[in-house]
């Protein structure tokens, strides 16, 4: 039963390498990390601790933490882009190009093709997210000496974000053309992002309606919720009051959102299997 899934996952990865999607991802990550490393190095070199500040080390950690949180925000967006762009054609392109005509009549089931695609593409996006995040953490440690033991969880949560968006996009791709599928998921992602901001503001201003909007948008797509959990695991909130900045994390998604994200992945795959299982090719 897992045989065909692994075969499909394998050629999906192979295709990623051959079509240079993987190379593109590596270059993207390398450019981003180089910029971050350079930025962190110069900030730390030229940082002046304000007069009257009691502990200069705490101030340095606070600045580094804010930079790291900003970078993690960008890493989340890059992960989303990688996941969505690599998966938008997963089924749609194969249908348009009739490549499935030679595959579906083989002794395998349609759901195995879809799950295999999700595994291969999900592995790519998750690897991108995890490696990028771990590299960010390393650079922060090297140049700023800032480190938190819970931050490995940030890497995993961002990896989960990649898998979530991959599975949602593959699901959309069973029904829509590649372009439409990609645009649809980007719009959902943007909606969740804005919803998350509204929620933060709602907490700050203590307006319940705004907080509810955030929760609802996280139910629609828990991508921003995952990112915020990842940011929390960086352990930079304690400095929020010191350095200020947009990532102060007033409210943290409950563990329920993590469960919802996992369930969301399963539901997206099931829906994709159902649609793809009934489609004429």
């Amino acid at each position, binding site marked *: 039963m897992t*045989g065909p899934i692994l*075969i499909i996952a394998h050629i999906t990865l192979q*295709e990623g390498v051959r*079509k240079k999607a993987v190379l593109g991802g590596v270059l993207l990550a390398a450019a981003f990390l180089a910029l971050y490393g350079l930025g962190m190095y110069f900030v730390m070199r030229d940082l002046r601790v304000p007069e009257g500040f009691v502990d200069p080390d705490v101030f340095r950690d606070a600045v580094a933490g804010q930079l790291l949180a900003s970078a993690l925000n960008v890493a989340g967006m890059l992960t989303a882009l990688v996941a969505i762009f690599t998966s938008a054609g997963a089924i749609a392109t194969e249908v348009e190009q009739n490549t499935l*005509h*030679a595959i579906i*009549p*083989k002794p395998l089931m349609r759901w195995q093709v879809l799950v295999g695609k999700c595994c291969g593409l999900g592995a790519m996006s998750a690897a991108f997210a995890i490696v990028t995040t771990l590299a960010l953490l390393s650079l922060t440690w090297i140049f700023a000496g800032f480190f938190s033991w819970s931050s490995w969880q940030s890497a995993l949560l961002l990896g989960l974000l990649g898998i979530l968006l991959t599975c949602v996009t593959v699901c959309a791709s069973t029904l829509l053309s590649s372009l439409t599928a990609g645009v649809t998921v980007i719009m959902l992602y943007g909606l969740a992002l804005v919803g998350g901001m509204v929620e933060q503001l709602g907490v700050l201003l203590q307006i319940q309606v705004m907080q509810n909007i955030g929760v609802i948008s996280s139910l629609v797509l828990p991508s921003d919720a995952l990112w915020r959990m990842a940011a929390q695991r960086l352990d930079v909130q304690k400095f929020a009051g010191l350095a200020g900045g947009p990532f102060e994390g007033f409210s943290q998604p409950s563990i329920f959102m993590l469960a919802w994200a996992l369930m969301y992945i399963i539901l997206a795959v099931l829906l994709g299997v159902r649609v793809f299982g009934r489609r*004429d090719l």
Partner: protein
Amino acid sequence: MADLAITTHQLRKVYGDTPAVASLDLAVPQGEIFGFLGPNGAGKSTCVKMLLGLVFPTGGNGTLLGAPLGDRHVKARIGFLPELFRFHEWFTAREFLNFHGKLYGMSARQRKERISAVLALVNLEHTAGQQLRTFSKGMLQRIGIAQALLHDPELIFLDEPTSALDPIGRRLVRDIIRKLKAEQKTVFLNSHLLSEVEAVCDRVAIIQRGEVVRDGTLDELLAARRLLDIHVESMSAAVLERVKSQWTVATSEGNQFTLALDDPADVPRVVELLVTGGADVHHVALRHESLEDLFVRTVDDTGS
């Protein structure tokens, strides 16, 4: 009666409001080469896609090798060359076959052995390491045939296997089909290249608008009618009228026309009528109907 490799019972597919396949009843015996003919858009490919699980029938059912459609174990015994194939172009020919071998569930050793065998069969050994994107259409069609035969299937569907091939490639495919027949495989051949079908098929079905309008063994279908090709000069209209009143004119073009005879014994009477009517007879030849004649006649009769 031999076992049936393929049966369909009132198989039907409707896209929107228009039926692509109206109601199809087929019975293909095992070990035969079956020609599935029909004009463009008659529903040939749709029918094959329904049999192979690519398209879901609106109604009816069928069996392959005795099992209902979609049986996974039977799928391992079937080979298929799709019509509008595009394979993953970034594969080399050998990788491509290796991938499909894995999908068939073949072991590494079986794959190694069979890949070399089928590459030789379709004459592509020298390009085994080349990416498919560099292949011509004819080469792609041949690698597609190699893919369909890789696991030594019992039942092979070929949807327009020679559409992109040059005469040499066509001969190659014809030889492959004959070889399959010698190995007692069943081949379901979709085509509108009638001379090829005529050269290899045991049995044909002609379909139009998704319904079988004629079927049978090639021999019995072509033996049903005799054609008499005639070339005459200076024939009067009166003589022509008398010919027409007794026999059917199948085709006519200038001084040449072809009569359809139910009884070959009529030939002397035709000639006598022409000669006594004062026509100069240059050429008379009796022949069997060709598949093309039969096809055109069938499709004309039932069309419009």
